[in-house]
């Protein structure tokens, strides 16, 4: 039987010395290889690890059993971002952010702006997810992002970013685009619209270069 203490992300490690990269270094990794892999904790891992994708975005799966997966990702010289609102077993709050920090996660994504400070405080890159629904919601969303001060904004659905770029405000931080990004043309159009990179579950695109 497992002892309860061994379930803690770092408790069974003799020495945990991992420190996430600072947000600038995280952004540089994405800029160099802008197609990031969107995966679940159970599917797509092996292919993502073998791809050129610099960052693996974990959008589903068991958030309480991530430590081993995080170590595998780091061993492959990749970074890992976890969507705290979507993974199972976690409630999106400061305690779950602390849990992910203990697991060695490099970046945390959330639609909850109030978590951005906790993510940054945990030494991780804070990614604020912005859902594009209606033009009339944009002002509210931009105000929320101004308050939350994330390191990166992730916009969904990313595939329409080129069409709506003209109505988008200028953000002071880099933008990632995810959602229905399926072809190299989609990627090129999104990058041309000013995005830092894309997150996609289309495996053929993982690690696609911007050139």
């Amino acid at each position: 039987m497992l002892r309860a203490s061994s379930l803690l992300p770092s408790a069974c490690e003799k020495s945990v010395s991992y420190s996430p990269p600072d947000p600038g270094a995280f952004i540089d990794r994405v800029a160099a290889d802008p197609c990031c892999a969107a995966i679940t904790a159970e599917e797509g891992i092996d292919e993502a690890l073998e791809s050129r994708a610099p960052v693996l975005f974990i959008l589903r799966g068991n958030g309480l059993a991530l430590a081993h997966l995080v170590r595998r990702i780091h061993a492959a010289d990749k970074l890992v971002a976890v969507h705290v609102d979507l993974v199972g077993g976690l409630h999106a709050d400061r305690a779950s952010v602390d849990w992910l920090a203990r697991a060695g996660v490099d970046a945390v994504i959330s639609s909850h702006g109030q978590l951005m400070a906790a993510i940054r405080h945990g030494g991780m890159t804070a990614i604020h997810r912005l859902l594009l629904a209606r033009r009339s919601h944009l002002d509210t969303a931009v105000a929320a992002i101004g308050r939350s001060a994330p390191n990166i904004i992730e916009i969904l659905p990313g595939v329409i970013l080129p069409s709506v770029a003209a109505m988008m405000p200028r953000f002071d931080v880099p933008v990632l685009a995810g959602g229905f990004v399926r072809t190299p043309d989609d990627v090129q159009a999104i990058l041309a619209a000013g995005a830092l990179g894309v997150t996609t579950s289309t495996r053929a695109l993982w690690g696609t270069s911007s050139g």
Partner: protein
Amino acid sequence: MAEPAERPRLPSILVASDGHHAVHAPPGVDAGVLIRDTDLATLVHRAGSDCPPDAVDIDSVAGLGSDDHAVDFVTGRLAIPIVLTRRPQLAARAAERGHVGLLHVFAYDSTGMARSLEGHPRCEGVGSVVTPGLVILHLREDELAEIPKPILTYGLIDTVEDARACLAVADAIVVRPVLAAKLVAALVGADAVR
């Protein structure tokens, strides 16, 4: 109030309004008015005016509950035949009463859209609101086939070209009044050329 003898039709173009100013459906095309982001008193006032709405986004009306009583009120007392909602049971209730219920299908990514569709009642009289509407231009045939009809596309449709493209895929679109005028001019102009 009695149920309608025949289920209402969804107009091809719904002009969005918050109800604070009178918005009329443009003449000469298959159009109506959607009221949203308003409050209960304004909704009641607009329903009794000379330009009553054809549709209401019921979840965005401050003061209105999210239950069967609310659906019965807007479809019965206010005689608004089309109800948009993110709650499957409310869309089904509108359909049960002989009206049209349109359930929001949130299409931010493929996984999320699939989850959104899992809760769809898939019964007669309940269609779908694809949100944001512009994304419909990027859905595959098999994804489109999974979305119960009629399909209304709603959100971020900002140009005449986008509006026409969405109309070619969906049954109806939601546009702001300023775009509605441009779109109608374009559509009527095209018909005149023919």
